[in-house]
């Protein structure tokens, strides 16, 4: 299990182990002996990449469903549309089409305002819906041409296929951030509450174990757990989705370290007083759930009103994701991430100080 078992055994016989070493080692052993924990920490993020990566892959040729409302010219309209490989036109009655629009089964319905005039075309769509305008333009183009519009020129198209712009590239830093947050909450906060409930913390307090040794060991074991977490996620995304890190790996390492410290400190606060698992999981959800949605892990927080952006940027999860994206996707340098790092350091120092003041060690 350990490095150089022979030397360790000799050393162990000669003198006792350092508490930091022994606490860290037992934390690691406890973790790897819990297969479900290993699954959630290491393989769940990979599954997320797999599922979301496939669901949101950049499709080479997408086919859009388009509804043609029943009427005298419907069949002809459909004829015009099916000439485009990207359009899948269906003739359907008005009521059914409205239902399909509402439920997202189609994004566009076309009809003639005047049954006598096949050129009185009306597009029915929800412009808020992703892709709706794109489909409208595609259909409009198709029909204008069919009804006689001539193009001013014919452009050629060259496909850009450098890796980097896919959803996976966006997702990996987000999942890393989520993983760091979960690790701090579960690996530090929940673990401490569990020890408190077991009276193990109290038992430790009856020994000469130094509190600082205990806390340092909790941090070290967090950092050790995290290394495979990061490497597995990046390696997996690389092999399956041709994922690339554009910035320096050193910068990524530093950011991950700072992020791990940040969430370890927040986990420490969460676990500092709770005496039941219910309180602990309540607090953890209070911390994690809003950040899952707000901080841009799965979709950019730019979608929220601009008014909220400064607040969102001050939440603990946003700066780690933003700075990782900056380095990993855009190839920025570590120095360019200083505002984010400042926020993360603040989220490390303040919670740690608060935790040390309010921590329940003995009961």
């Amino acid at each position, binding site marked *: 299990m350990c490095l150089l078992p022979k030397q360790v055994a000799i050393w162990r016989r000669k003198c006792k182990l*350092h508490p930091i070493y022994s*606490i860290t080692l037992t934390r690691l052993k406890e973790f790897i*002996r819990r297969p479900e924990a290993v699954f959630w920490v290491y393989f769940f993020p990979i599954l997320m990449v797999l599922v979301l990566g496939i669901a949101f892959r950049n499709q080479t040729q997408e086919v859009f469903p388009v509804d043609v409302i029943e009427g005298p010219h419907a069949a002809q309209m459909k004829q015009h549309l099916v000439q485009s490989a990207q359009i899948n036109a269906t003739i359907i009655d008005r009521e059914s089409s409205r239902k399909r629009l509402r439920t997202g089964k189609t994004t566009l319905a076309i009809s003639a305002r005047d049954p006598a005039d096949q050129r009185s075309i009306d597009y029915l769509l929800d412009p808020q819906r992703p892709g709706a305008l794109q489909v409208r333009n595609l259909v409009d183009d198709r029909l204008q041409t069919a009804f006689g519009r001539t193009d001013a020129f014919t452009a050629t198209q060259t496909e850009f296929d450098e890796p980097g712009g896919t959803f996976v590239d966006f997702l990996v830093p987000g999942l890393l951030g989520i993983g760091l947050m979960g690790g701090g909450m579960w690996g530090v906060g929940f673990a401490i509450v569990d020890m408190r409930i077991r*009276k*193990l913390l*109290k*038992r430790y307090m*009856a*020994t000469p174990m130094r509190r600082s040794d205990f806390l340092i060991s909790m941090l070290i074991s967090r950092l050790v757990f995290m290394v495979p977490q990061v490497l597995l996620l990046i390696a997996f995304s690389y092999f399956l989705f041709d994922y690339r890190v554009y910035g320096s790996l050193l910068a990524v390492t530093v950011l991950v370290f700072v992020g791990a410290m940040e969430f370890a400190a927040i986990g420490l606060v969460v676990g500092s007083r709770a005496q039941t698992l219910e309180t602990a999981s309540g607090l953890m959800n209070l911390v994690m759930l809003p950040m899952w949605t707000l901080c841009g892990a799965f979709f950019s927080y730019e979608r929220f009103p601009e008014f909220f952006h400064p607040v969102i940027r001050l939440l603990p999860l946003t700066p780690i994701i933003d700075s990782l994206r900056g380095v990993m996707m855009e190839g920025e340098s570590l120095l360019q991430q200083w505002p984010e790092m400042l926020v993360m350091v603040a989220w490390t120092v303040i919670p740690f100080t608060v935790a040390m003041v309010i921590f329940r060690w003995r009961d």
Partner: protein
Amino acid sequence: MPATVSSDPIARTGSPAIKCEGLIKTYPGKPPVEAVRGISFEVQQGECYGVLGPNGAGKTTTIEILEGLLDATSGSAEVLGMRWGSNDASIQHRIGVSLQETRLSDRLTVGEIVSLFRSFYAKGITPEEALRRTSLTEKKNAWFKTLSGGQKQRLAVATALVGDPDLIFLDEPTTGLDPGSRRELWDIVKSFGAAGKTVLLTTHYMEEAEQLCDRVAIFDAGKIICEGPPRELIRALGSEHVVEFSTDRPIEQSVIDQLNKIPSVDQVSSTQADCRMSIGQPHIVLPELIRQLTDQNYGLTELATRSASLEDVFVAKTGRHLAEEV
């Protein structure tokens, strides 16, 4: 004779291992809970001292104050000549603690847990030695969660003694254990005494205290109701035997008054059809008891005589049975 002087623990050591005076612990609340209401006692070095009493008597609160895990509301506590609050680590290095209920890490082995605790102490015995002394050597590689209740308790004791302490605190070490496991733990505690260690243990089993302790303090409602060597406390009752019997119908008060007049009977108490007599000499009381019951047409369904125990001391002092409150 110098030999007898040196074997006397007080003379040998000078200062007591534990000395507490006027300990009071009040938990805030509405109304405030007075868990400990003025406890004073001393434990000499090398002594095995038992704190006895029903649940809620303040035993755990007192022991945790002495272990440095609770702050007393008032009063003073001195452990190994030192006070909590100034240099706690130097006390902690010299004491071993087994809490009433600690669930150690489920997925660590017995050996790993003891090594972990060993790493906290500057000096101590090897983890292997701690396991040997608690008969856990064979379980070294077993996960904590696979252990039986008795093995878990012994492991708790192993973590207490791995730092080779001068003073060991055991809070209800045998509660919930089967008789076999209990006896195994008694042997371990007796071996501490043989090694000259001081032990403070709490229990609500009176026989355990009689077996193990040089002196006991009986706690009730946050106070010490009596203190001394178990044999002396029992002897102080005056009656060294107890007769307990049951009859086929409730015994009338007039009969009890009659029984009280039998020579060598000190006290008779009864509930419904169960009766209990504190007596001096069974050979005088028993024939007379049987004769009187037969005369009154009572059928005797149960009859037992035994030596008086600490349980009887508790009954005599409080009027309650200890067993009923556990």
